[in-house]
């Protein structure tokens, strides 16, 4: 139940953002994260963004993994 989906913010208006999940535009609250901008990826859980995904970190982790495996 602690599922959180990474999605891209397509619009931001104050405390509210809009994301596109599976073709549906959904409203998410941004109370729990520090002002994310349009185009950033957030983890969405129960109608709230709970984290801003660190894309550089993800890329770096993948590079490291590919070297290791």
């Amino acid at each position, binding site marked *: 139940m*602690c599922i959180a989906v*990474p999605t891209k913010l397509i619009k931001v208006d104050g405390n509210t953002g809009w994301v596109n999940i599976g073709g549906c535009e959904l409203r998410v*609250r941004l*109370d729990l*994260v520090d002002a994310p901008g349009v185009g950033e990826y957030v983890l969405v*859980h*129960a*109608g709230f963004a709970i984290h801003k995904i660190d894309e550089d970190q993800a890329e770096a982790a993948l590079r490291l993994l590919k070297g290791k495996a």
Partner: protein
Amino acid sequence: MKHMTEFRQPDLSRALMEAIKRSCHKPLRIMEVCGSHTMAIFRHGLKSLLPPQIELISGPGCPVCVTAPQEIEQAISIAAQPGVIMTSFGDMLKVPGTSGSLAELRAQGADVRLVYSPLDALALAQERPQQKVVFYGIGFETTAPTIAATILAAKHAGVDNFSVLSAHKLIPPAMEALLDDAEVRLDGFLCPGHVSVIIGAQAYEFVSSTYHKPAVIAGFEPVDILDSILRLVKQHEAGQARVEIQYQRAVTQEGNIKAQQLMQEVFEVTDAAWRGLGLIPGSGLKIRPKWAKYDARSYWDIAIPPIPEPKGCICGQVLRGVNKPPECKLFGSACTPESPVGPCMVSSEGSCAAYYKYQGNLL
């Protein structure tokens, strides 16, 4: 986001699986605490591909499964009160209490609704000012801040017919209880990714410092899970015990401070009864007296004494990783997802439901 699909790459998964096989010599019992990890492990058939020395045990991280039967009865009693609209997340409606489930109560005419977010329940309260809308809040640290933010939003909007029946629980005290349980015998933890987004890696320090076991915070794609298992294997083989973050794109050492502060503002820590694990000190969240107006228990203080497990159901043992679902006599016969006896078969994240759905992957 390009890298999302890369965490599913079959080549990378295969290479990690080979690395696990090469590195693993000693037997290793790993508990995946989170129900979403259980689902991902089954969906990708990882159990059957791992070397036989590695045993993956499902833990208590399915909120529906660990909700104590008396709490479900309490929700049912409140839902039956006149003028109440009871709302909750999907699976919770189907869990049988002693007098039926919330879904059955709805069939008898009570107003019980499924919501996707606590905000939907708040919106409903605004639409229906004559009724009392109760959100039956279950879940762990991932969900609790969203409930806290919703209570703040209710105050901000001046809504006073909205309340929360809080059955929120905290993961680290449950892990501690499992480590203290001589029957469980674990060598390491695959820590829940999205709980850790909120509480951070620091919350698991006790696992390494006090219990000298490794803990790795894992993401949910196959590459994430295999990389995390490899990290656990390496630590175990080398006799090390550290907390590692594998899910680095989402988890930090300190977690989401904003969410932690909101949680602190609205909730205080309390003892909580877990199905299967019993009463665990400091493992639950109750609404602070300051926010009593939004606490369903301050309107309806319906105390229900502890209720035993349904006859024959060994969910309690399954949640502690002591028994596997097929060891239950009712599994697949009297108890199926269509007609579940215990919550571990109701919830799509429950171990019994996962074993039932993916039995083929185990053979």
